[in-house]
């Protein structure tokens, strides 16, 4: 009772997923190694890692579908190993390579899920109609699933995870094997869901750019360990090379003007390099070191542009790409090798950094 009051007072602060030193070992292989993870309501958390990094194992432990070797997990405040039914009632799960009963229609597949979740008759049909509409499959709902494309199956999978009105959505590789446009659609849908329903989403992926575009926070996962966690900006400051990038658009006609602009930009404090725009572009790229000076440099550019009569068309700080961060994170932790040929190395008892 006491606990419930606390939850009611401030439901948004309480993490819906929380793990402490969660570990899963298969014989000699440590699939997940002392994982600490927190996901709060209303956020999209991206679990980023290569194939075999332990993402799916983590997810299965969160759902109570496999038991952790040691450590603890709490999902909606419950231990999934002890209360799997309650947890599964409130968590929608899209498995990696989701499958459906091919001989049944999309609607029939969803109806089965709805019934397993205690939804019957009108309630079920309303819920099914809603999720079908959300994923844009209303027109194909009465077709057999075996006629669906891979992308449609993926969207049906999301509908299937949503039909039980979950508090948490766990998506394992939701965008693999989908064409680029489909990916954008799915990511937009996820963002809408978070905004409209306020649910928490945990998604795993090995596609860095997609994770970057949709996730609020990201956990970089390698060989069963979390090597970095936070927003893209935070990860950048953690794992970047210490420099920041600013794109400056300048409206310059003649080569003389370019010469002058280059001199001005290069003369600013903390600017390391200035790269001239490519043909038919007016974007100059500056690298700033240290990265913390980035905001000051932007101010300086603005002031210099006024002073030297340079016509600014744009001024944009470039968030470093997750690809770079990922690579550095792996290298920094000396895990680039173990991430590929892990097993022996990770089992040899490396202690926490």
């Amino acid at each position, binding site marked *: *009772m006491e*606990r*419930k009051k606390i*939850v009611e007072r401030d439901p948004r602060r309480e993490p819906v997923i*929380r793990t*402490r*030193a969660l570990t899963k070992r298969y014989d000699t292989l*440590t699939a997940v*190694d*002392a994982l*600490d993870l927190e996901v709060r309501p209303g956020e999209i958390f991206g679990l980023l890692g290569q194939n075999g990094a332990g993402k*799916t*194992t983590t997810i*299965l432990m969160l*759902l109570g*579908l*496999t038991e952790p070797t040691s*450590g*603890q*997990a*709490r999902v*909606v*405040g*419950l*231990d999934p190993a*002890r*209360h*799997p*039914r*309650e947890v*599964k*009632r*409130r*968590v929608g*799960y899209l*498995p*990696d*390579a*989701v*499958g*459906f*009963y*091919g*001989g049944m229609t999309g609607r029939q597949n969803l109806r*089965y*899920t709805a*019934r*397993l*979740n*205690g939804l019957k008759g009108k309630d079920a049909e309303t819920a099914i109609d809603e999720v079908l509409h959300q994923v844009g499959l209303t027109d194909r709902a009465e077709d057999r699933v075996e006629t669906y494309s891979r992308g449609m199956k993926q969207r049906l*999978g999301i509908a*299937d995870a949503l039909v*039980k009105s979950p508090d948490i959505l766990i998506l394992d590789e939701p965008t693999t094997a989908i064409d680029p446009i489909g990916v954008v659609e799915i990511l937009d849908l996820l963002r809408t869901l978070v905004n409209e329903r306020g649910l928490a989403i945990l998604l795993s992926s090995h596609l860095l750019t997609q994770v970057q575009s949709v996730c609020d926070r990201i956990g970089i996962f390698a060989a069963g360990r979390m090597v970095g966690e936070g927003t893209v900006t935070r990860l950048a400051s953690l794992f970047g090379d210490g420099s920041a990038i600013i794109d400056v658009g300048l409206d310059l006609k003649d080569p003389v003007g370019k010469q002058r602009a280059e001199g001005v930009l290069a003369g600013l404090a903390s600017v390391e390099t200035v790269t001239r725009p490519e043909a038919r572009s007016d974007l100059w790229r500056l690298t700033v070191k240290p990265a913390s000076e980035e905001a000051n440099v932007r101010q300086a550019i603005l002031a210099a542009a006024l002073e030297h009569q340079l016509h600014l068309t744009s001024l944009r700080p470039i968030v470093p790409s997750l690809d770079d961060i990922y690579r550095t994170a792996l290298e920094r932790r000396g895990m680039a090798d173990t991430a590929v040929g892990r097993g022996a190395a990770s089992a040899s*008892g*490396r*202690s*926490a950094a």
Partner: protein
Amino acid sequence: MSASVPTAGTLPEATAPAPDTEVADDRMARLPAGWRVVASKEIGDHVTSVRFIVLLIVLGLAAAIPLYFAADRIRAVAQAATGVPAVFLALFTIGPANIAILRVDTFVGIVAPLLGLAFAFDAVNGERSEGTLPRLLSQPIYRDDVINGKFAAGLGVIGLVLVSVVLLISGFGMLRLGIVPASQEIIRLVAWVFATFLYVALWLSFGLLLSVVIRRAATSALVGFGVWLLVTIFGQLITTLVSGLFAPAANATADQVLGSYQAQQWVTRLLPSTLYHEISSVILTPNLTQISTPATIGQLEQAQSQIPGLLTLDQSMLLVWPQVVALVALTVVCFGAAYILFMRQEIRA
């Protein structure tokens, strides 16, 4: 390794929502028994599947047997002796004189295992290869709901068709031949249907076990078919082979001969097909007072001096009780093995 654990503090756990408190998620309380939902979906699948049509055809053939073969012989028998015991049950035990398989009981005994296998061989590995197993198990059901539901659905569908066929044959017997069953005969028929259920359940469990252990549905179908062939068709062959080991030497004493004979019978009884055959024939033939052929002169004399008479069902059941128990035990072992293995299996391929 344990030194690397940063914070070993225990996470607080909210109490599981109990249905009687306001904390309860009312949706949790409304959750249906998972195995029922699984079973009803499976039944829906079964009745629209090809294998259901096969089931109808095969058991339909069983119904056709008395239509073509039994009727004439029963008429003849019935005319010859009005006092023939249990004429109604003869519908199920009489066929053309020279083809043993064309009797309802024998026929059902041969096809029941196949039907059981057909409805279970791909139960778990089928879900696995379709990629539906993780999705199904991530629903709020217990893991055993899946295997229980599938077992119930298979037994339900086969049972339904079996009962229909038995009713069809009975109806035919009453309408066309004018044989009205006595109450004892009805009870015996019900008992026979139950025994057949049990036999189907054994093979269903065996099919389930295969579907859990073997990852490919085609392989598990082949293995199942192989075992059926071995047990049902080549059963006699196996017993001959095995009993060869116990064969008495040329200079054996009477006791040794007797012992080897009993050993042979014992080996035969290891086969579920023999168990079912014995149960089935004792239940359907009230005047059968012993199962095995007499092994001693004393037993032989006893059998010959017996006044032919009818056993009541409880006496017949007493006769085959060990067989019934053995069949139940085999079913429990198969289902139990499938159950435990499935519960302990990793979900990932």
